[in-house]
């Protein structure tokens, strides 16, 4: 990861900026959404993804410590995924996020119950937390 960041830094102009965009594990909420209403089924277990988060954070801190990047700013915001049903959501997670997210049985049961009880059009929503951090490229420290 650090090696990749070194290469990316080399591709930047001296005033260049690195923009790191990624979701961060934060026990994302799972809701059943109907017109004008969202009912919470609970939170997904995204703890497996924290290993990747920590590795990425460590790599960036290494670059900062070595004087190669300086952090400029950081913002976080919600990023929602919406499916038509709990089954669609489960299939999507199994196909795309295996190893990053676990849906505990109790959470799934609660989501299915809310889905059955919901009136009218309903959707299933997981709201991720996404972070954008920006870093200015710094010159190589003297003597490096």
């Amino acid at each position, binding site marked *: 990861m650090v090696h*990749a960041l070194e290469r990316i830094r080399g591709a*930047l102009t001296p005033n260049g900026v690195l923009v790191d*965009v990624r979701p961060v594990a934060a026990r994302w909420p799972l809701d059943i959404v109907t017109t004008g209403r969202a009912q919470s089924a609970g939170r997904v277990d995204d703890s497996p993804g924290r290993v990747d988060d920590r590795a990425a954070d460590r790599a960036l801190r290494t670059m900062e410590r070595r004087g190669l990047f300086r952090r400029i700013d950081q*913002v976080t915001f919600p990023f929602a995924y*919406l499916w*038509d049903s709990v089954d669609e959501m489960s299939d999507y997670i199994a196909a795309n996020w295996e190893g990053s997210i676990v849906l505990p049985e109790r959470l799934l049961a609660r989501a299915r119950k809310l889905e059955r009880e919901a009136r009218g059009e309903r959707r299933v929503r997981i709201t991720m937390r996404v972070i954008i951090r920006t870093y200015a490229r710094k010159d190589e420290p003297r003597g490096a």
Partner: protein
Amino acid sequence: MALERDPHGNETKFLHLSGGLSGARVLEVGCGEGRLTWRYAYGTRSTVAIDPDLEPLSTARDACPAEWRTRLHFVQADAEHLPLRRSLFDRAILAWSL
């Protein structure tokens, strides 16, 4: 209704606010099928979007509007072996890829 992502466009909004991408020469790392690329590339001077996997890259290339093809390029590469000149880009975006 199909899968919907970020219906309020938060990512696009915050990417533009934070990234200073307008008029910039941009390198995007881990572009996949171009999900993020389509959200910002129209405003850049040029964009090179890389991904190690050919299949999603092909999808992105096929979806690229003809009028963008002179300044938006999808390249099979990974960040550790960048086949690019040094000091070429004003911005480098890690697109959910670090």
